[in-house]
């Protein structure tokens, strides 16, 4: 029997982890629309400091506030990524000078060392939908929100070619934080890259 994929959002102590509360439903909707992956209709909120995260192959982490993991969260996060889990860490501020980016980057690099740039021809950009120019820009980037930059690349903790932790300054949390029913009003579904992330996490 195949278990359903459950979209997991990481709860961590120091920040507003639930700031993109509609994002899980939106991506669950996209997975169901475009793929045949069995997916649970509702996501789960999992505490980063407990063993619960090891039940989920894909975890989303976002926020606006400073990221200061506890020792238990740090230990769990390191084990989770090293053992093959996929964590997506998105800066909801879209600001390289912002406190989320500075503190989250410090925490990640303290655990895993300096992050690497994901090349724009990486498998994650063509494992389901094709993104030949690398990560798609978000409307917040295009509108000059945050640091007024379009970040052309994503960064990651990589093991060889495999991405263990994907880090984004592009604010996909804001881009995808809308009710799934409003998706039908757009000509191009902006959540397609989210589908790639989940397919990559489950099949690589």
């Amino acid at each position: 029997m195949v278990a359903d994929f459950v979209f997991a959002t990481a709860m961590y102590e120091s920040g507003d982890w639930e700031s993109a509360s509609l994002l899980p439903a939106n991506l669950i909707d996209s997975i169901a629309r475009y793929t045949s992956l069995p997916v649970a209709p509702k996501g789960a909120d999992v505490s980063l400091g407990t063993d619960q995260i090891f039940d989920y192959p894909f975890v989303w982490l976002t926020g606006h506030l400073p990221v200061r993991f506890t020792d238990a969260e740090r230990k769990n996060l390191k084990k989770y990524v090293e053992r093959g889990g996929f964590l997506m860490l998105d800066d909801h501020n879209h600001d390289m000078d912002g406190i989320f980016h500075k503190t989250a980057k410090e925490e990640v690099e303290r655990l895993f060392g300096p992050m690497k740039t994901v090349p724009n021809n990486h498998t994650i950009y063509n494992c389901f939908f094709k993104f030949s120019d690398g990560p798609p820009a978000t409307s917040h980037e295009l509108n000059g929100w945050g640091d007024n930059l379009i970040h052309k690349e994503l960064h990651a903790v990589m093991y060889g070619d495999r991405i263990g932790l994907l880090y984004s300054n592009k604010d996909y949390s804001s881009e995808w934080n809308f009710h799934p029913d409003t998706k039908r009003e757009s000509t191009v579904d902006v959540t397609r890259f989210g589908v790639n992330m989940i397919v990559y996490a489950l099949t690589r």
Partner: protein
Amino acid sequence: MTARERVRSTQRSLEFVVGSSAIFWGAAALFAGLVLVAVINRYIPMASAVRGTLPVLAVLAGLGLCGWMLWQGRFAWSFDKVALWIEERAPELRYALVTAIDPRYADSVATLMEPTVSRVDTGVFVRKAAQRTTLPALAALLVTSAIFFFAIPKNWLPKTSLNEAFSGLHTPRVIGNRLTPLSGTLTPPAYTHLRTQQLRNPSTISGYLGSQVVLTGHGEPDGIKVTLGVPNMPATELPVTAGEEGWRVAFTIKDTLGMLLKLTDRKYQQLIVVDPRIDQAPEARLLLPARDTTLRTITGSLTLSAEFTDDIGLGKATFTYIIANTGEGDAAQARLGTLGTRELGGTGGSFSLTIPYSSLGLKEGDQLSVRAVILDNNTLTGPDSGFSETRTIRIARKSEYDSLSINAAPPSADTAIMSLRMLIIATEKLDKQKAKLPRPEFVAQSQKLAGQSEIVRQKIQRILDEQTGGGEIAANPLLTTALNAMWEATRSLNIAETGEAIPQMYIALKALKQYSNEKKYFPRGQLKVPLVNIDRVRMTGTDTGTATPRLAWPAVPSGKDRLRMEYTQAISYIKAAPDSAIATFTVMRVEALKPFPKLAAALGEAVTAIQTGKDATMPLLQARRELDGKSISVDTLPPWSGIW
């Protein structure tokens, strides 16, 4: 003595003086030449082949000078010239001596000249000649030979000595193993303030990164090869130079990986494990504030307290803060700063300070995060830094609470943890005083703590009752563990067995912390999210995408598999070729240093036991266990497959 006999006698003496002077000067020239070249070699090292020919050249120089001196003094071998030599020094003879020895006048005037000749003491002239020539030559020889033998290192000349230069004429010298005994020094980096260690026949060299290692042995350096590298990877050859009493090699411990130092002298070989010690990052533990808090009003003071430890030496300690505010929308603003700095020292220290909240410029909705940061004194690769846990103090907005509401009590599990922590500290303190306190007083204090322990146990019981709803839901196993542990702890304290109570209290603390983590209430709680109707939207997307096949990840080779194979091979020839087995175990030990330290330790003991002729069974068994893991017990026997 006749005139002829007198001249003959003088001639013998002069032959001795001239001959000995020539020999002395020749030898002095030989030693002087060798000393000069040794001095030049000290500052401009010469190739071994050049140094090998120097003794031959020195001998030739000595012989040349000796020959030249003999040529200069060749008159001493001529009877007539010796007589003239005497006449030259005794003018009063007026050629009486020459006439007396002339064979043409031997029968006629020789006897008439005898009285005149006999008045001259030729010995004086010979003595003066010896003083002028032989004594200085002897002095030069003594000086140059003393310098050569006592001031010049014995090993600067390769042993392609004069004997070996004429190989075939003499038996070559046998040189033994120059790799034992081995001695040296290990000098740790200056910032550690550690002393230099002396090394004697080391099988392992363990030092901090940046340590300077010098190894010395006897004999000349030629023919000795020393390499340093990670096993099974290309190694770096280290230069071996002439030391004061033999050969010398020096290197710096630079890599964090274990390395193999391989010394080779012809058929002799020695392997030394280089185990780098890493300067650990310092650790910080924030004691105050003890937990996160939410404040309704910005009054009072913030007390910060932390303790720090480091393996070598602490540097600067500071408290850092972030004040963030999400505002009413999505925009998050933040300020960062430091609160106080102190230079610590030693391997342990603490730092406390108190500041009024008003000095931080806090306002409603702010979130103040504080933590302690410590640097160590590593000036080589650091300084390394350590961070404590972060404590968060939130300033509530008026809209977040009702004026009639009361601050919610902290979750029950947290108060139980706080009380249990105090109890553990008090019990440990009492346990340390067990030997000093009189028994009745010790028992009384222990029973007081038993009362406190009982209160904590009752708190846990209440939490358990709340969780199970009076028994309707199954109890959380963590709470059950904590409760049982506190029963045991209380019982032990009642009978004054503090040593038995403490581990039980730690079991309870760990279980409560884990339970508390799982049940933590996050500040904003959980919001309602829409439920996706999967059946309605399944495969309705117009953009179908292209699924690419899944790639199989290559199996990561296990380091232990290869080590296991090498171990089995080494065991198979341990009796027939123990040196080879030792070499194999040493290489395995280097590879296992960081990833499998227990295996490395067991192999080290095995190598030492084999080298000293002791029984290596136990360490080898231990190494096998480390490689194979724990044995698995099986409930049933396998099916019988014997032949009836």
